[in-house]
């Protein structure tokens, strides 16, 4: 099968999976007893806010929550018309967030790029730190450098994220004047990007990046090191050495590419991790990202928001796996997706 054919085939498989996932997501979200509006009404009643109750009742009919669940699914995806005609995911209408009282698209839109920013920073951190360190640790295996890098990595790994964040925030603020929490100075919010804003964001990103990144970096570093050590003594590395390649290039071109195979397999996880990877961290660090919104939505059963975020993450997962499958074929030409069961 040529690469192109394979890519097309893989794409259609992805659509199929996505459809199955959408059913599952919808089911899971509707699994727990109760729903947002009922909870909401209960709470509003408890606190005597008659007004909210009316609004909640209004939303219930507006969003067809009084219909059977399968019908709700069809309406949500956009296969069937709702009270106000067809408007579902495939029509580009993601629904309404009851918690935020805004269209899902708007909430997500805001949070999404910040999420991607934070996690991109973390992912970059992981790669920028872990790649060279992992390669170095392998090249210099069992020296003090290897051990120190390992130790620092494990230190980050073995400290609960929140505690680590607190420690970093507290002492960072005390001694280096690093801001606590948030993604930028409040005064820059909503401002156009400027150098000052960028600087503010950069300083705010230090701790989150570090907290989210350490675990990943340590993990990647150690695994890379192990894989590299496997490759380093293979004859083809000797050939490369006999060519007179400089160490850096030698390591990165040959064994690294080979050692990278398991990581490429994991790219499928990288994309969704950009969105959902740091949920708990974002929640505790109060980053205005999609993670806390998701958690809140799930807890309060804000179903359209939750469903959309989950579908989005699922889509990213699927796209990620697809990319990783395609990359794998490019990375290692020996891989053939033929079967072996004869």
């Amino acid at each position, binding site marked *: 099968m040529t690469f192109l054919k394979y890519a097309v085939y893989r794409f259609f*498989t992805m659509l199929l*999976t996505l459809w*199955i*996932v959408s059913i*599952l*997501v919808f089911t*899971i*979200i509707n699994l*727990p007893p109760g729903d947002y509006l009922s909870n909401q009404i209960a709470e509003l009643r408890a606190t005597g806010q008659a007004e909210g109750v009316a609004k909640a009742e209004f939303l219930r009919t507006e969003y067809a929550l009084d219909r059977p669940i399968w019908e709700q699914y069809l309406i949500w995806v956009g296969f069937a018309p709702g009270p106000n005609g067809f408007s579902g995911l495939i029509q580009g209408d993601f629904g309404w967030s009851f918690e935020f009282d805004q269209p899902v698209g708007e909430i997500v839109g805001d949070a999404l790029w910040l999420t991607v920013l934070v996690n991109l920073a973390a992912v970059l951190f992981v790669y920028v730190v872990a790649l060279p360190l992992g390669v170095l640790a392998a090249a210099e295996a*069992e020296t003090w450098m290897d051990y120190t890098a*390992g130790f620092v990595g*494990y*230190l980050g*790994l*073995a*400290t*609960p*994220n*929140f*505690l680590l964040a*607190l420690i970093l925030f*507290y002492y960072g603020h005390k001694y280096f004047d690093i801001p606590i929490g948030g993604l930028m100075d409040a005064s820059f919010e909503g401002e156009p990007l400027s150098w000052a804003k960028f600087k503010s964001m950069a300083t705010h990103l230090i701790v989150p990046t570090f907290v989210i990144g350490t*675990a990943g970096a*340590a993990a990647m570093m*150690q*695994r890379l090191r*192990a*894989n590299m*050590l*496997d490759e380093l*003594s293979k004859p083809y590395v000797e050939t490369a050495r006999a060519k007179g390649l400089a160490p850096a290039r030698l390591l990165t071109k040959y064994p690294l590419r080979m050692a990278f*195979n*398991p990581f*490429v*397999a*994991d790219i*499928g*996880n990288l994309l*969704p991790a950009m969105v*959902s990877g740091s949920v708990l961290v974002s*929640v*505790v660090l109060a980053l205005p990202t999609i993670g806390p919104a*998701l958690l809140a939505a*799930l*807890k309060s059963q804000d179903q359209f928001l*939750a469903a959309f975020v989950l579908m989005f*993450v*699922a*889509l990213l997962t*699927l796209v990620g*796996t697809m990319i*990783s499958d395609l990359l*794998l074929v490019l990375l*290692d030409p020996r*891989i*053939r*997706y033929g*079967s*072996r*069961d004869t």
Partner: protein
Amino acid sequence: MSIQPDNRYVDAEAWSDETNISAPERADMDAPAWLLTWRKFKRHRIGLISGIFLLLCYLMLPIAGFIAPYTPNQRSADYLYAPPQSVELWHEGSFVGPYVYPITAEADLVNFRWTYTTDTSTPMPLEFFCEGADYNLFGLIPSDTHLFCAPPGATIFLWGSDRLGRDVFSRILYGAQLSLTVGLIGITVSFLLGITFGALAGYFGGRTDWIINRAIEILRSLPELPLWLALSAAVPSNWGPVAVFFIISIILGILDWPGLARAVRSKFLSLREEEFVKAAEMMGARPARIISRHLLPNFMSHLIASATLSIPAMILGETALSFLGLGLRAPAVSWGVMLNDAQNLASIEIYWWTAIPMLPIIIVVLAFNFLGDGLRASLDPYKG
């Protein structure tokens, strides 16, 4: 040696045509592969030390109650947030044996903390093999003998006490019982599943691969958070905390395998094209054998590294889960539970000793890592 006129050199030593193929030493030849590996491992100093350390840790688990001076939930109402006490030997120049000074607490209502004064005039020698609170040796045999305890009127908080006056040191010992065992179950489950499915997909390819891959994709794109939330509501209330956590870690393992499976799969997709795999196949080796004898060993380093990396994740997994109300909880003690209690500024800045559980975690994690590295090195054919 003789150099002949035309620059020719001929070795002068006696030469015999025989190829001396000596009889091999039986014992040596019969040594199974693991023994050879073990011999190699013994030479990896730091790995060996780590291994011994971990062995001791695990041996200590059943007798933690004996070593700990207190039981994990024993509260000393008069000693809240007591700082660590030191054990000393010499008092005013004379040898007393191991002793502690008695401490007394006072509430400081200006700063809202407990302040402690140490009475350095009366050394109180520790008691050994003394009676204390009840516990179960090996989880079965009731006993109340402790290796050491404080004499009446004094306390022995080696690593301080926490908010309710519980001994941090004892709690760490007890916490090890859970942290070092239950979490590992999750790893085992996830590794078993991950390797099995990854190997099947990677080795067989084709339809097997397709099915497993779709399963992986779906599992992965399935939201974990709502599952946890649903689970936290669904677990029967009267289950003990340990039972809940046990189930949770198994489920954690069950959900965790796809990552590993994909790594295994992709590596196997490439490894299965290697000539030695073809050779084994042509000899009639069954897939199980090829996977376990040919493919897995070539991915061992990654697996070992992944396993050692999962350990901190599993030990700490509960802290994240506690956030969702699913973690371990009192009265169960684990390192994660203790750290969870320490997740506030006061524990960092004022009562720093409540964050001590970080230490054993780091040490154990490092030990596992070095052990893993030792293992990896001793399986590495290219190392002497």
